[in-house]
């Protein structure tokens, strides 16, 4: 018993060193060497500032942008509060929330069927994608707001539609952030209120921050997180 207790203590300490420190640090080193962009979250930069991650969804408003799915992460797409609504299928709150969303979407596109992903929250609250159906549903609105033809917008959607892996894994999807960035690039004119021109930033989290200034400076000097905006 005493012998085994002694072994237990030493074994715990040794394995904590091996598996708790050496292993994750080794993986970090290798990952940074082999896949630096992916290991750091596929950050997208514009004018030297990080404007988001390719695979973390953002909230978009205004008729000229494609909108992401509803999100239950904090007040919407807050990565510090990732998660779903956890509303059960018979919960009135869910049914009423969907009804309200349906009403709003009906007003903007009275004919097309409303794709289910546009009125439901994702599991992570950070879903970067919408279904091709949800993009097609929004295309007429975006085209109208931008003063371009629906065909042009649809062509852009097709360009950003990602198929299944190997033709059968997962589901086809459209990355909302990349699509919107491309819209801005091609058809210009970010609507007013771009933070790039704004002075005041609202700190929005309860978590003690690592310092936004420090982070931004670090990202600015990093070579592997250069813009993916083509």
């Amino acid at each position, binding site marked *: 018993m005493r012998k085994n207790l002694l072994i237990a203590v030493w074994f715990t300490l040794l394995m904590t060193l091996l598996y708790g420190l050496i292993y994750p640090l080794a993986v970090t080193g290798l990952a940074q060497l082999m896949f630096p962009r992916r290991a750091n979250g596929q950050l997208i930069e514009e004018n030297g500032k990080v404007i988001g991650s390719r695979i973390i969804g953002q909230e978009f408003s205004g008729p000229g942008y494609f909108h992401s799915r509803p999100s239950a992460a904090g007040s919407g797409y807050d990565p510090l509060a990732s998660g779903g609504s956890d509303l059960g299928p018979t919960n009135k709150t869910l049914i009423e929330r969907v009804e309200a969303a349906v009403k709003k979407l009906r007003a903007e596109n009275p004919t097309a069927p409303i794709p289910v992903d546009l009125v439901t929250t994702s599991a992570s609250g950070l879903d970067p994608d919408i279904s091709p159906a949800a993009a097609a549903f929004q295309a007429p609105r975006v085209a109208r707001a931008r003063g371009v033809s629906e065909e042009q917008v649809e062509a852009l959607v097709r360009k950003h539609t990602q198929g299944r892996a190997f033709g059968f894994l*997962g589901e086809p999807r459209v990355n909302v952030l990349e699509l*919107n960035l491309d819209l801005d690039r091609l058809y210009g004119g970010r609507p007013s209120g771009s933070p790039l021109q704004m002075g005041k930033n609202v700190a929005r989290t309860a978590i003690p921050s690592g310092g936004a200034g420090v982070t931004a400076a670090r990202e600015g000097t990093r070579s592997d997180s250069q813009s993916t905006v083509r």
Partner: protein
Amino acid sequence: MTALGWFQILFYLFVIFLITKPVGIFLARVFEGEKTFLDSVLRPVEKLVYRLTGVDEKHEMRWTEYAIAMLLFSGVSMVLLYVLERLQRWMPFNPQKLPNVDPTLAFGTAASFTTNTNWQAYSGETTMSYLTQMAGLAYHNFVSAAVGIVLAIVVIRGIARRETEELGNFWVDMTRCLLWVLLPVCLVASLALVSQGVVQNLEPYTTAQLIVPHTEQVRGADGKITIEKVTEQVIPQGPVASQEAIKEFGTNGGGFFNANSSHPFENPTPLSNFLEMVLIFAIPSGLTYTLGRMSGSQRHGWAVWAAMAFLFFAGVTTTYWAEARGNPLLHGVDQQASAMQAGGNMEGKEVRFGVADSALFATITTDASCGAVNSMHDSDTPLGGLVPLVNIMLGEVVFGGVGAGLYGIVVFVILAVFIAGLMVGRTPEYLGKKIEAYDVKMAMLSILILTLTILGFSAVAAVEPFGTSSITNPGPHGLSQILYAYTSSAGNNGSAFAGLNANTPWYNVTTAVAQLLGRFFMIVPILAIAGNLARKKTIPESSGTFPVTGALFSTLLVSTIVIVGALTFFPALSLGPILEHLLMLAGKTF
């Protein structure tokens, strides 16, 4: 349901079938001390571990010493995790300056990770420092998985060896499991995950300037709601991939982030999703082959595998069907699958996975005692959520947790041959060992503990205000939430109907107790069975022996599992998900 959806499910099962034999052979070689291709690198490390920790490699343990060593090790590791959580504020690798974890949450989390449950009453991204994640949580992912695997090996040795007290050495088995099995696979898998976009760094969180600011309602300290403009998004970082690999491979399931494997940084693509699913079933499936190989009856191993595969397929079929049908209460919404969308019940699901991959993942994670989720089970349709719940209630023996699935199924095998023995009026035998009163008593004990824990705590929580006040989905779904919490805890699964507010003193303490009961009061009787079996003589097979191979045996095994599970939990299930399903069809909301 779509043809491609079915194809993904069948393809997955096929891949699992393919890896069963190689994994099984490798595991057998590692634990029988045979040569493997990794020996030249790992043997020196292994020897060094024994020298530093004072382990005598040649020493063989009786089942009691094995149990004591296992309990001591689990205890010491649990204390270390608690201390790490309580002191993380002053430790390195904490770029976000996260405060120390409060005592009941720290205790609950320590119990949860020690027991391979990984029930999480916290959000990783705002609670745990990088050091706690790496040296506390990921470390426990490794060792609690290893404990499960070596116990399964001991049970197999108990069946295979005869007239001996010797069952192996806990420390040697642990070391070989950690070095030969878990480390190499996790190194490769974590890098594969990074290649898909799982993050792996030690940087502070990134602040992104949103290109389109939006407004949000903020409730101030005085209760007033003000509208604020949001211009930033804080994106968490961290050593995620290294933890993600062992989280799945060790069937642990504790997410780095709150959203677990639905988070794009934990599971960014359908390919990473597939890899994670394969990692979950790899060892549990392989162990059935190891059982066959070490016990000398390969056909028995495959008969067990077939029973598991059948139950798996039945589960995934039900979930996929229920989720693909969608929610009939949502009017004016297109839930039909088409070329343009996956359709179905998309509340709590990610677009890249759709209903097929979500149903598949939900079934796998609850068949195994993993508990990682890529969709939110709380938002599943009643029958879609019933399957994960039932999977755990059956004891997670459908492939099951690493090791835990195998020793769990051995309990059911013992019951099955016992029942067969009663039917023909002969002493039951299992692979040449007589199954006697002591073995059956111990087997029943481990089953009853699980039942008693789940139903006992649920009953109290369902009637007392400290239990019901945490419910967030009214109506029958509320009972499902409570039932799922204790089922997941006692079954050491760790997934949740996550709406339930589990971070209260009542739930933190009772779920932790349920986890400890479900783990250790299951393990000790099973070790006792192993010890008792090893002591017995082997008797030759006769014409009166009920065969433990072939379709008849698999059918009997499936029936035993289903009947025991159904009889025990059917009343509770009918008041929860089944009632909710009927009310949903009647158009009732809560």
